[in-house]
């Protein structure tokens, strides 16, 4: 099945999403340094293209899971900026009423079923959502994002084995940024490509340039269409580059800073803008309008979050168990 390639209107929507993620995370960084946003905060600056290309093709009822670097996935899946920001500030109007924070974002209404602070921990849970789809007989497709650091964990292999054995509609999206926390991939494994790691399980898999939004969109779209029709699982490895450190405040002395022009060549936003301009999808001025609209939305989100009250103390007891 050949999916239609990215068109101009879709490309501009993706750009808007990427700018919302980029500017949201830059604001989060400032708020973290000012001790307003709390928790262990991991940003995905430089990796936004993957979140946008994948989530924009999904429906609200497609369950999406992520790891600890999850802001972009939540936002791309539809989580509102204001309530997401309020969550990071620990406020009652946050997505999770301020009880979860950066690594535990959940927005069930938009099918963002959760981030986790346990590396790779959501990979089997996403498979469980795919199993639920099979048992119910619906056509939802589960997607889980994880970093290349998760691939060395046992539960990752257990899950890939089960997913392929049961042929469930799951798309595993690996963001391979070459670093597991502070350590380059080469220090943790001899297998450079994640697609090579899973090769023996025999699932359909591909490695793409994750900072090439058009390529990521196309590759994911092909897998999604097949999974929607009951096929799967799939693994899409997106090579990307984390512009920031492991967490907010990490001086990242363990690697060389990218030269500005080198970064320009990698930045998924710049690349998509260039592509869109070359295709004649938008004029230069439109890009600035998209960025500025996103900046306004982020400013409003920060204002909303700051104005939101902290949760009441009795929430602690109320939410340990569900009623029933």
């Amino acid at each position: 099945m050949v999916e239609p390639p990215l068109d101009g209107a879709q490309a501009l929507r993706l750009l808007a999403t990427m700018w919302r993620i980029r500017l949201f995370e830059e604001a989060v960084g400032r708020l973290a340094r000012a001790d307003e946003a709390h928790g262990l905060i991991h940003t995905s600056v430089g990796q936004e293209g993957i979140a946008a290309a994948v989530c924009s093709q999904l429906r609200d009822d497609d369950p999406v899971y992520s790891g600890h670097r999850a802001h972009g996935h939540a936002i791309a899946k539809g989580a509102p900026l204001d309530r997401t920001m309020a969550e990071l500030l620990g406020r009652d109007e946050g997505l999770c009423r301020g009880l979860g924070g950066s690594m535990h974002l959940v927005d069930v209404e938009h099918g963002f079923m959760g981030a986790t602070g346990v590396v790779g921990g959501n990979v089997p849970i996403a498979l469980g959502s795919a199993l639920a789809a099979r048992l119910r007989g619906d056509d939802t497709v589960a997607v889980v994002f994880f970093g290349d650091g998760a691939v060395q964990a046992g539960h990752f292999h257990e899950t890939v084995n089960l997913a392929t054995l049961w042929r469930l509609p799951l798309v595993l999206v690996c963001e391979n940024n070459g670093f597991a926390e502070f350590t380059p991939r080469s220090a943790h494994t001899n297998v450079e490509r994640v697609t090579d790691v899973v090769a023996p399980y025999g699932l359909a898999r591909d490695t793409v340039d994750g900072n090439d939004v058009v390529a990521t969109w196309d590759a994911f779209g092909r897998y999604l269409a097949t999974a929607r029709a009951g096929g799967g699982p799939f693994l899409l490895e997106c090579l990307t580059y984390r512009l920031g450190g492991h967490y907010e405040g990490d001086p990242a002395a363990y690697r060389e800073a990218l030269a500005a022009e080198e970064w320009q060549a990698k930045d998924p936003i710049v690349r998509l803008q260039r592509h869109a301009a070359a295709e004649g999808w938008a004029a230069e001025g439109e890009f600035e309008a998209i960025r500025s609209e996103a900046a306004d939305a982020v400013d409003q989100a920060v204002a909303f979050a700051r104005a939101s009250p902290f949760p009441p103390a009795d929430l602690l007891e109320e939410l340990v168990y569900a009623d029933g």
Partner: protein
Amino acid sequence: MAETTYVKAITGALAEAMRADDRVFVLGEDVAEGGPYTATAGLAEEFGTARVIDTPISEAAITGVAIGAAQSGMRPVLEIMFVDFVTLALDQLVNAAAKAHFMSGGQLTVPMVVRTQGGAGQRGAAQHSQSLESWLTHVPGLKVVMPSRAVDAAGLLAASIRDPNPVVLIENKTLYFRREEVPDELPAVELGVSATLREGRDVTIVALSRLVHDALAAAERLAAEDGIEAEVIDPRTLVPLDLAAIVKSVQRTSRLVVAHEAVAHGGFGAEIAAQVQSAAFDFLDAPVVRIGAPFAPVPLSAPLEDAYLPGADEVVAAVRGLVMPP
């Protein structure tokens, strides 16, 4: 009345839940073949292998799978074949299942049951004989259930499946084939409600799982040999705990013995003792006595395992020490 066994009650409750609710399914190692103790025997024949799912030996992943299915609206019943291997599932149980509802601000619920079994007495040695319930009771968000009798094992399992929270139900391997007279219709049971199995004025014995039967046997001996009337309470669920019933009993008897097979050190008996002394210190005539295994792994050697395991003799001795001080 009818005669049944603990394991038949479990199997029957699973089948009943699967008939009543399409969302209920069973997964685990060898479940389609019935498992080592036949707890899931016949289910694959009735419901098919789409709902009775054999899994590889991948405890971490299958626990995650159950969590995801539960979050997506299903009602999984996961079997961890021996509680000893819950160690491999603990990350998922502790970090995901127990916390999902709380961390999501109430958006997610995880209505899953983990069925597992523990206990020594079958020469299974140190890795197939443990009683690890106290670890699980320490995790906010999990419920922990330990049936001791066939008559309420079915009701406890049914209530666990209906519950919107993750529930770990720990069976005892030595009880599976114990014969028991039960009513034709097994009673419904609520989580968090204890059962007072014997009334008595002199001492309260709170016993868990297999030790319930030892406590009842001990109570009969104490009555016959010493004229001591012991009250025996089976909490049935550790989380939530029916503290009120235990306290009420202690207010009458003024003495408490807590008995379980798990290592006494850090065991759930310590929690019961602490809660009772907080709630009813003025009513206690003596320190609470805890009965549990010594602080050692379960040995293989038959005489050593027999000596290791607490039973009716230990309960009798503890009660005599409390009621008839030298």
